[in-house]
């Protein structure tokens, strides 16, 4: 296809400097095209069959990108949770040096652009290749997981800090009054309530990390979005088709995960009565 519809023009415009070759030399949007939107709506919305065929032919390449996107997201969210949850707890219940260290680290990580974090991990710290039994993780991937994961930890710590603080002090006090230690009272009384309250914030964080994985192109990795970009710079008539296709994949990934978390939230919701 050639770019003729407003949606496609928007898409290539918004890519701006990233895709100069697609923006130049295209058929300009003519009055006739605008006038015939009603009859042309089918094809500009769904794209040219030949260009869809191009997407299908390259689906393997994109699938590799999906794998990297999902892998980076899962690993980063997991690392973010494992580091972010305790960090949030330290910010709420800790004192002195540990609390200052954790909150300073959080401020630094949240205040640094993610590209800079990745560049530092890759070029300055130089995260090494990690050998697992079955295979190895390249330095670029482990740097990406560490960078995205620590950044996510800094954000997740705030989700959990807010959730822990939102649980009434009387809950902790009541736990202590039956003889639970501070740690046990937090563990058995406060944390179960705080985790439930952190689900909406966690849904946000998941969605952000998923889409931010594309930033790993800065250290040479090609996940879903970067691979899409590679494709439509090769086949400049297929910009819309490629973008629609990968957007669809992002949508499926965020939608299913958010639904799963919604389900978790409903499944473990604390029953509420009318006579509260």
């Amino acid at each position, binding site marked *: 296809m050639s770019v003729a519809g407003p949606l496609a023009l928007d898409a290539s415009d918004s890519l701006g400097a990233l895709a100069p070759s697609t923006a130049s030399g295209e058929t300009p949007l003519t009055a006739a095209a605008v006038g015939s939107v009603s009859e042309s709506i089918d094809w500009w919305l769904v794209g040219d069959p030949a260009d869809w065929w191009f997407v299908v032919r390259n689906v393997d390449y994109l699938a590799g990108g999906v794998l990297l996107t999902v892998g980076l997201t899962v690993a980063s969210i997991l690392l973010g949770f494992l580091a972010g949850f305790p960090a949030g707890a330290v910010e709420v219940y800790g004192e002195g040096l540990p609390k200052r260290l954790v909150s300073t680290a959080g401020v630094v990580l949240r205040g640094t652009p993610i590209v800079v974090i990745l560049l530092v991990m890759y070029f300055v710290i130089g995260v090494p290749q990690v050998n697992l039994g079955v295979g190895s993780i390249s330095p670029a991937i482990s740097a990406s997981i560490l960078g995205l994961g620590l950044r996510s930890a800094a954000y997740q710590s705030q989700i959990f800090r807010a959730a822990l603080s939102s649980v*009434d002090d*009387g*809950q902790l*006090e*009541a*736990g*202590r*009054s*039956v*003889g*639970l*230690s501070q740690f*046990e009272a937090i563990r*058995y*009384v406060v944390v*179960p*309530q705080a985790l*439930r309250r952190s689900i909406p914030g966690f849904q946000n964080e998941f969605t952000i990390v998923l889409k931010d994985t594309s930033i790993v192109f800065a250290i040479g990795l090609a996940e879903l979005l970067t691979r899409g970009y590679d494709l439509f710079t090769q086949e400049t008539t297929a910009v819309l088709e490629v973008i629609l296709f990968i957007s669809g994949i992002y949508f499926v990934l965020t939608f299913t995960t958010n639904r799963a978390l919604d389900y978790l939230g409903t499944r473990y919701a*604390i*029953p*509420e*009565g009318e*006579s*509260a």
Partner: protein
Amino acid sequence: MTDGDFLRVSDVSKWYGDEQVLDEVSFGMDRGDVTVLIGPSGSGKSTMLRCVNRLAEAQEGSITLDGEEVLSPDTDVDELRREVGMVFQSFNLFAHLSAVGNVALGPRRVLDLSENEARERAANQLERVGLADQLDSYPAELSGGQQQRVGIARALAMEPKLMLFDEPTSALDPELIGEVLEVMRSLVDEGMTMLVVTHEMSFARAVADEVVFLDDGRVVERGPPEQLFERPENERTGRFLERIASHD
């Protein structure tokens, strides 16, 4: 007056910053006694109660329970609280647990009973406070009076040797106060040692062995209820009781 020495509070003082909230408070209880702390709000009675299980820290004086010094830095506060039950004004039930889960948590995690034993003990305690039919209800599904009875059951499940009640009926609608007081009366009948902060003067009059009137962090007057209520020696006690009575 001879003081009991099961719980003995001697010259306890406490400050929040520069503000003194308890000023050499002393009283004593024997096993099985019921002592009621009364006084205007801000008089320090809740703080006094909370010093007994160290939810608040007294800075001076001594509190001994069954001969053991409570305020010593060597005291294991978790062990102390295992033996001293507490009922809160705002119930503070664990919102994410059912009634039986609320009561079973202490026995399960503190006394290390098995899941089944803890549940059984919890069910028994809930039956004791008249909630055998609400075992699986969550706090938000219960009325205030029912919630407070779960709170009492939760404390009882630890088999405490002393029960502290911090204004247990103050947050309740008037029609729900009776069911909670009834449970408390039954505990009195069973011989439970109870230290109670309350504004329920008729309850105090009916069950207290001693009433302690606190004002401004100080014990103004104390004595058996008939004496304190009928013939208060201190003018401030008299004025407080009149103010309370005019609202009854």
